[in-house]
């Protein structure tokens, strides 16, 4: 049986070992923050942290996960929000919001490594995350606000 640590808790997983981490998070652990977008590691909606690094949970087999997983639910809560979550609300940086998990998880891992990024750095860091509503300008503002 596969065991993973998510948001500080250990879980025994019943899914077969080759199941993508995303389905385990959503369907077994009921952590719905990470979203299914493409299953191809192309859009970023499923992004989580594994040992602080952004990972596409749709394309990582659960048995291959060795590090500690953090989902957006573990990043912050309304009571203890992550600065990026505060910034996204302050900038009203969402429309449908389906991509926002990936934006916040990618940006939080990025800012942890590069707390004073240039505009170009921010755009490069988020370039693999797709947004279809066209909320890019606000998302960029939110990441700049959180970095400031």
């Amino acid at each position, binding site marked *: 049986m596969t065991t993973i640590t998510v948001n500080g808790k250990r879980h025994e997983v019943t*899914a*077969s070992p080759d*199941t*993508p981490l995303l*389905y385990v998070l*959503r*369907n077994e652990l*009921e*952590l*719905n*923050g*990470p*979203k*299914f*977008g*493409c*299953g*191809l590691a*192309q*859009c970023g*909606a499923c992004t989580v942290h594994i040992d602080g690094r952004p990972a596409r949970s749709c394309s990582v087999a659960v048995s291959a996960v060795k590090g500690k997983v953090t*989902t*957006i*639910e573990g990043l*912050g*809560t*309304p009571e203890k*929000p992550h600065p990026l*979550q505060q910034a*996204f*609300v302050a900038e*009203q940086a*969402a*429309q*449908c*919001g*389906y*991509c*926002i*998990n990936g934006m*916040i998880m990618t940006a939080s891992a990025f800012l942890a490594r590069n707390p004073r990024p240039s505009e170009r750095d*921010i*755009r*490069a860091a*988020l*370039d*693999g*995350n*797709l*947004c*279809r*509503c*066209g*909320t*890019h*300008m*606000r*998302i*960029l503002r939110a990441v700049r606000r959180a970095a400031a």
Partner: protein
Amino acid sequence: MNLDRRGFLKGAGALIVSFSIPESAFAQAQDPRLQQIDAWLAVGADGEVTVFCGKVELGTGVQTALSQIVAEELDVSFGRIRMLMGDTALCPNQGPTVGSQSIYRAGPQLRTAAAEARQTLVEMAAAALSTEASRLSVADGTVSAPDGKRVSYAELVGGKKISRALSGTAKPKSPDQHAIVGKPIPRVDLPAKVFGTHEYVQNLRMPGMLHGRVVRPPMPEAQLERVDEASVKSLPGNVRVVVKGNFVGVVADREEQAIRAARSLKVQWKQGVELPKMADMPAFTRATPSRERVLASAGSVEPALAAAAKTHKAQYYVPHQMHASIGPSCAIASVTADAATLWSPTQSSFNLRDTVAVVLGLPRDKVRLVWIEGSGCYGHNGADDATADAALMSQAVGKPVRVQWMRHDEHGNEPKGAAMVMEVAGGLDPRGNVAAWDYQVWSPGHAGRPAGDGPGNVLAGAALGLPDRLAPNGADRNARPTYVFPNSRVTLHLLQSTVLRVSSLRGLGSPQNTFANESFIDELAHAAGADPIEFRIRHLKDERAIAVVEGVAKLAQWNPRPAPRGGKNAGAGRGVAFVHYDNYSGYAAIALQVLVDRASGKVSVERVAAAHDCGLIVNPDGLKNQIEGNIVQTLSRALLEDVKFDTVGVTSLDWARYPILRFSDVPDEIAITLIDRPDKPSVGAGEPAASPVMAAVANAIFDATGVRLRSVPFTPERVKAALA
């Protein structure tokens, strides 16, 4: 989920304001707000206000804006409003959530309902406080008399159920009294969206629920020959194969098991219908059998063209494009022998309920559709199809079934925005004014949404052989110019068939028609040696149209000169375009700057300015969010998007083969001027700002390079070829 309207109201103790005026009564009505009234709201004993809204939240912020309207008229704080949306058992049928019409149509309905409720509550308070209603004031749901006596809405309606029909006497507030409408109130849905806890339909799970996936035919109209059920027999998850007519699906215990089964299932299809070659599409489109209709005509075009000092003619093409929602469509259905419940992110709760009822063979009053938000749709994506898929499979297996389409399902099967050809011939008089304008458009209808009379409009219905129907709406949207020309004609060639499955994509035919109209006016300005903005204003009479064009010129610090720019700065250019959306709705003008890299052909949009007038503004920040979204999404359509297909079917099946705009390519800045018109009705902002974007980019590329691009998208390859 099990909220029952009667139980809900009984529990809360409520005042109900209901309106049901027969359609026929609207025909003579003077006040347009009375024409569509069909809304309910309830004031609970706890002081909370529940609004039952037939329109739904598609990520545009309309829930927040509509809540502001109700709070304003009811004189309660914004935080007291709760809104239930799109549930066929609880909400009034206000029509599908389409066409930038939620604020425009549902707004007045809810405003009137709230004003009526307030008037009734104040009358009740007058009786309770033994005074005259005219002496009372209301603040946050508490009614006060001059002597200090007060009573709350909650106290007035506690435990009592009072039904009142619309009196028609309650007068909504005048805009100068607004304290909530017009304020940038933060969106109610955003906190949950950034904490990962928002309830999307994709997150919903039912006890005993199974997972389904659909196996679609490889090409249009391919008939099912054989399903080899043995090919999935050994797979884990109690795999069941569902075959009905041409519908093939699999159901399994777990999601990953259903995915694997759908991949493994061996299905043989008969040869379907071959598609034409993509490269031939403009000519193929013009040659498709069509019905011709003159949409507008003034003066006599042929003599005016013959007499013109200068004439010019051009053809434009916009290919199929897709909604490309980030989350593939998802729905859950629970179907029993005699009833069904659907959980769906549809834009058309009532029409989809009726459609699925036909697909299932159930009476529609036995089907309930509970709307839950999904990924942004920007029109008719796969949401309705996925709902019918889930229903058909749940009916087959007798358990709740959740279907989430895979990425290739969504890209391949969602109804596409239609490919369109436009041709314009124009003539200038000796002073350089437009003397003649002859516009033609070749387009199919853009309305393939499910309705009770088109059950084949969902794929599961089509697979059962049920009839489908493509309504003509949208082909003509913004075909008619807002400019006033002495001789003009607009002709629609309504195509009687389509190459790919098409339906409503944001703006329907408006972005395409506006691309042609606003490119051609620029081409004539060039022929006249005129500044593009001055030339436009010269031909406009509508003051609101002139105001947005002047507004965007000011915001963009536009210095008058003809295009192209030429000289040593060639490569950098600016372009402008304008729309009066659907010829009745909002006004939007866009001016933008591009940089064209001559070596690679890459077009970078650096700065965008927008001026926007949608009447009385309800929420200025929500409005800006919509305008920005329209601009960025349509820049993506203008620069990159083209649904690829071969003779068998769509080959743009993922993000690599259907790229959209990324962070590194969005503009440095989008500046917006909002023109508030408190004396004009609020119209929608979900679509207008999208329409001028394609032409503004083409016009800017012309300004930068002197080369005119008349086919979308303006990919590096195409730009490079045009510059060669």
